[in-house]
């Protein structure tokens, strides 16, 4: 019994809602003490818990056993993201004038089979790639660079002893960390060693990604994560097509990330005549940092093909801050190619695509929204009449939900731009880049305004007349930076999308419909006004 309902606000006892909040751990300490001390409230709480227990018993023993198991095996999430996989023809590689080594040929075939077999899991793909790579002879005279704690050191790729004496304190600590992880320090950039460490893990999560640099060179990155041991994540990058290991990252619980890469003699790293285990500090392989202008150029290039809005494309700097990494998952082969093409001219950009690809455009994987059966029937009838019939209401609903979602995605793109290019960062850009940044921002704001106009038009039969007065700058919006002004625009766009979803695909009582419509009208008017102020400010 809801005591406050009966006894009024002055009641000493807690309401049922407050009792439930107590169970959720969301109640003030004072009220919690009251429940413990009050026999009546404690009793009501026990009644609630007994009812829940009875329902759980009913469900577990009577309902759940009657439910049939899923008729099909569950699809892995990757398959859901990527959609149905058509058979992929093997890539045709251009053979050079010299015959390839038999091991390399085998590696190519295995890599192709592994990466284009859609039914295979990431672990199986990782195992096959590592196994194929491990069969290659290791280079006993090469060098590798080791980047740890902000320093870059060089050591032999293969060392004779795991416990060779070292003067450098970083190396001593690394040796110990690798030993604790049971990872062979003598040859860390080796698929055999990586596989040996990986195979001993009680639980692990694998992933395989394809990395493509701007100069079209491809490699495969095998990444393994675990919750056990001191080495939590390790990845090995295998060069395509021969699967030769060229780089590795090792994320230790205590040491942070250790990055290793094959050092090419005669380029940046000094060649060592003697394979002594003593490292020497050298300059990093590349010291030019990828500044914000690189990210800006990437965004502008993606904007040309609309890939900066609403697509699962993530942009970040690598840990050395020397490259901008563009990571995409679950997009079609055609889209991959488009992205690669527009980014190709840009320096210091690295592309990462998931190993498997989709032939299905992303948008088609999302089921079309439909309005909810929970719209109260009389209200739905009213809506349909105002739109000129059920089919027209249905069409408008689908369109509005889609437009609302696009507006939220567009707002997110604007938010990303505002976050990545703060006023200070903007100030540091060269003049042409600042203009480019403003053009990008204007594109987002303009597109957002178009989407809002479309929502307004579609909603006209339902909404009260929207105020369309001149935009007001009374709140000081025009005096703020465009980055600061983006925040309320983004917030309003998301709220509008939520409100549309709730109105057209949610579940609610008829009595609340008028309030929802009024609130939606207000939000749209505010969003429209905020966008117009922003556009008139002309920043």
């Amino acid at each position: 019994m809801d005591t406050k309902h009966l006894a009024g606000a002055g009641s000493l006892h807690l309401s049922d809602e407050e009792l439930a909040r107590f169970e959720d751990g969301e109640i003030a300490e004072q009220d919690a003490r009251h429940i413990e001390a009050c026999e009546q409230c404690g009793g009501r709480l026990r009644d609630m818990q007994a009812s829940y227990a009875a329902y759980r018993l009913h469900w577990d023993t009577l309902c759940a056993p009657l439910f049939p198991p899923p008729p099909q095996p569950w699809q892995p999430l990757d398959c859901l993201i990527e959609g149905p996989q058509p058979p992929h023809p093997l890539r045709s590689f251009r053979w050079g004038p010299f015959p390839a080594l038999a091991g390399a040929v085998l590696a190519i075939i295995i890599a192709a089979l592994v990466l284009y077999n859609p039914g295979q899991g990431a672990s199986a793909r990782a195992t096959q790639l590592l196994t194929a790579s491990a069969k290659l002879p290791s280079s006993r005279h090469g060098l590798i660079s080791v980047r740890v704690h902000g320093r870059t050191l060089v050591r032999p790729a293969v060392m004779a002893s795991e416990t060779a004496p070292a003067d450098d304190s970083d190396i001593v600590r690394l040796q110990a960390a690798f030993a604790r992880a049971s990872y062979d320090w003598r040859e860390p950039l080796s698929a055999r060693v990586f596989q040996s460490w990986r195979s001993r893990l009680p639980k692990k999560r694998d992933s395989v990604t394809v990395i493509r640099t701007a100069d079209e060179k491809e490699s495969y990155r095998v990444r393994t994560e675990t919750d056990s041991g001191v080495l939590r994540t390790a990845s090995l990058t295998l060069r395509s097509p021969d699967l030769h290991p060229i780089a590795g990252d090792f994320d230790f619980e205590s040491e942070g990330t250790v990055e290793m890469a094959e050092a090419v003699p005669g380029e940046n790293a000094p060649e060592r005549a003697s394979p002594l285990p003593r490292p020497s500090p050298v300059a990093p392989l590349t010291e030019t940092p990828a500044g914000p202008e690189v990210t800006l150029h990437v965004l502008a290039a993606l904007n040309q093909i609309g890939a900066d809005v609403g697509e699962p494309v993530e942009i970040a700097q690598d840990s050395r801050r020397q490259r901008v990494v563009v990571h995409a998952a679950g997009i079609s082969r055609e889209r991959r190619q488009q992205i690669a093409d527009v980014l190709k001219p840009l320096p210091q950009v690295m592309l990462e695509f998931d190993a498997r690809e989709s032939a299905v455009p992303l948008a088609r994987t999302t089921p079309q929204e439909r309005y909810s059966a929970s719209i109260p029937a009389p209200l739905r009838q009213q809506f349909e009449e105002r739109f000129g019939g059920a089919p027209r209401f249905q069409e408008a609903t689908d369109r509005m939900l889609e437009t609302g979602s696009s507006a939220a995605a567009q707002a997110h793109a604007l938010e990303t731009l505002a976050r990545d290019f703060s006023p200070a960062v903007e100030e540091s850009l060269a003049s042409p880049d600042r203009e480019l940044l403003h053009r990008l921002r204007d594109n987002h704001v303009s597109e957002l305004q178009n989407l809002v106009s479309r929502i307004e038009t579609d909603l006209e039969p339902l909404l009260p007349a929207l105020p369309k007065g001149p935009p007001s700058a009374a709140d000081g919006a025009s005096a703020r930076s465009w980055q600061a002004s983006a925040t309320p625009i983004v917030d309003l766009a998301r709220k509008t999308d939520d409100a549309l979803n709730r109105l057209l695909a949610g579940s609610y009582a008829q009595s609340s419909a008028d309030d929802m419509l009024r609130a939606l009208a207000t939000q749209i008017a505010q969003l429209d006004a905020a966008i117009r102020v922003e556009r008139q400010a002309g920043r």
Partner: protein
Amino acid sequence: MSIHERVTALYEAERHNIYSYVLYFGVPPGRAQELTQDTFLKLYLTMSKGEAIENPRAWLYKVAHNCALRFHQREHTFDGLGPGVDPADRLPDPEHAAMEHQRRAVLLAAIRELSPQQRNCLHLRVAGLRYREIAEVIGISTSAVGEFLRRATVRLKGVLDGY
């Protein structure tokens, strides 16, 4: 943890619960499984767009709830408690547990008499959702959740007190 990894972990942990929840709305198993998978795909796509989801588990129930209702609206009617048979009749050996059988039959009848919203609130509460999360899933206020749960509790308590 990346978005992909987070959604994968949720998919492994929650897909059977979401599947059962969709079945609870009377959706056939094949469609229920498809809707369940669609729900997780939507979660991935939504998170990939950068939208912040405070409680992905509650979000999954909310989308599954809407999917099940849309299925019902488009395809056919449903009985929230299953395919129309009396689960009490399926008990393996009612003679050996006559009292328990009777108690459960009365409990079942009481649950069937609850309104769909009361049953749904109860189901989600037992599934471990918080008060405000239930409100979000069903699209009603927290005070309405409180009222539905209160009525359900009173009804079930009456049955339990008789045994």
